[in-house]
């Protein structure tokens, strides 16, 4: 094929990239988590938001299972607690903010691998809302639904009563943005992100667990970080 004058730089570059790419697929998970730890302080100090363009460096990715980002204004937002309770609740954002607040600073771990370290979450403990509604003895689980009209999630009652499970209205000390599930979302600290139902609209108390959106699609229902979905992440 033609003459051999010259160094085949093009071929070398292409082969090196393919080799590096393959290595990245095989070992990228480890490199990514190392990089996350390295870059997290930089990102925390960044005020421009531009560092969110840096890949896999401890920032949230936005997922929605529907073709749009659902919208509720603060004024029209309502959260209902229904099902096997003595006193069903129907709360606005102001009602939630009027209740005793809990602030947690904890990691957010997605089942697809990315992790955001040390995220401040503020909201009402789910257990407090359950106590207020008066859970009936027959109850054993909760079903959460989103006002995207598609997403659902589940927890057992024992899981839901943990102190690190919040009905959150602030993320990183700002109101939860629309993209991140605002005005109100769930935060289940010890479990993978898909349990932390965004755009939370209803908490229904049921007798047994009804598998949620992703759980009907093969993900584990008891989604403990590091002990489910075949992953070995550091627990939160």
């Amino acid at each position, binding site marked *: 094929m033609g003459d051999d004058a010259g160094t085949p730089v093009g071929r070398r570059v292409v*082969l090196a*990239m393919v080799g590096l790419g393959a290595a990245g697929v095989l070992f990228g998970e480890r490199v990514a988590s190392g990089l996350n730890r390295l870059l997290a302080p930089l990102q925390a100090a960044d005020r421009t938001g531009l560092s969110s363009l840096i890949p896999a460096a401890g920032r949230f990715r936005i997922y929605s299972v529907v073709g749009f980002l659902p919208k509720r204004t603060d004024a029209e937002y309502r959260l209902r607690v229904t099902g096997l309770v003595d006193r069903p609740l129907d709360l606005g954002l102001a009602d939630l903010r009027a209740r005793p607040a809990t602030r947690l600073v904890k990691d957010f771990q997605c089942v697809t691998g990315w992790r955001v370290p040390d995220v401040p979450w503020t909201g009402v403990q789910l257990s407090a809302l359950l106590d207020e509604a008066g859970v009936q003895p027959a109850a054993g689980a909760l079903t959460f639904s989103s006002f995207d009209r598609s997403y659902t999630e589940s927890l057992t009652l024992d899981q839901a009563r943990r102190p690190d499970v919040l009905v959150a209205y602030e993320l990183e000390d700002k109101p939860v943005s629309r993209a991140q599930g605002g005005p109100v979302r769930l935060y289940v600290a010890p479990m993978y992100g898909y349990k932390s139902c965004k755009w939370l609209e209803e908490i229904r108390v049921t007798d047994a667990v009804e598998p949620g959106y992703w759980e009907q699609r093969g993900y584990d229902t008891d989604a403990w970080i590091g002990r489910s979905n075949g992953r070995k992440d550091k627990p939160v």
Partner: protein
Amino acid sequence: MLHRFDRAERALHWANAVLFGVLMATALALYWGPVSALVGRRPLVRQVHVVAGLLLPLPWLVARLGPWSAALRADTRRLGRFDAEDRRWARSLGRDLSVRFGKFHPLQKLNAAFTAGAVVVMLGTGSVMHWFHYFPLRWRTGATFVHDWLALGLFVVVAVHVGKALSDGEALGGMWRGTVEQAWAGRHHPRWADELSGTSPAMGSSPVDGAPKT
């Protein structure tokens, strides 16, 4: 006017440009929070991104396998190799101003190689991300990691490429019309200009050494 790129090469370049534009726009809408929130419609955007990605090899295959591929092949060969002058340029870290470039500047050669390699890697990692059920979960994370970082690199490289083209109308015109002015070629690609006007041995017919020939 000197003939620089034939019709098939230009068609290939602009088909790639359109696909890259679609891929980069949809990438932003999928990846960057502020744009995601503005655009929404994630399943549709993702579908467009995947289809545009899978189409990427098509223009190249058509251009390369058709009866019109002679110029593309010749230019691919030039792009793939650093000749003696290019090596001299590289050794001087680009500071040796006496280097007389051929049809392509060494940075254009590197750009072509990087982009070609990137397309292969993006297609591979993108496939693992799209058909993730068939792969270990670890691979999905690794593929996402590679896809993200390489995308960042591609954005930078494409931005520089477009910026360079816009700052030099004649270079852009060469890819648009296929021809460039003799004087421009003499300034930027003197060895190629010599080659076309027959004042120097054709490229590759003899080993090129450092000194310009007359």
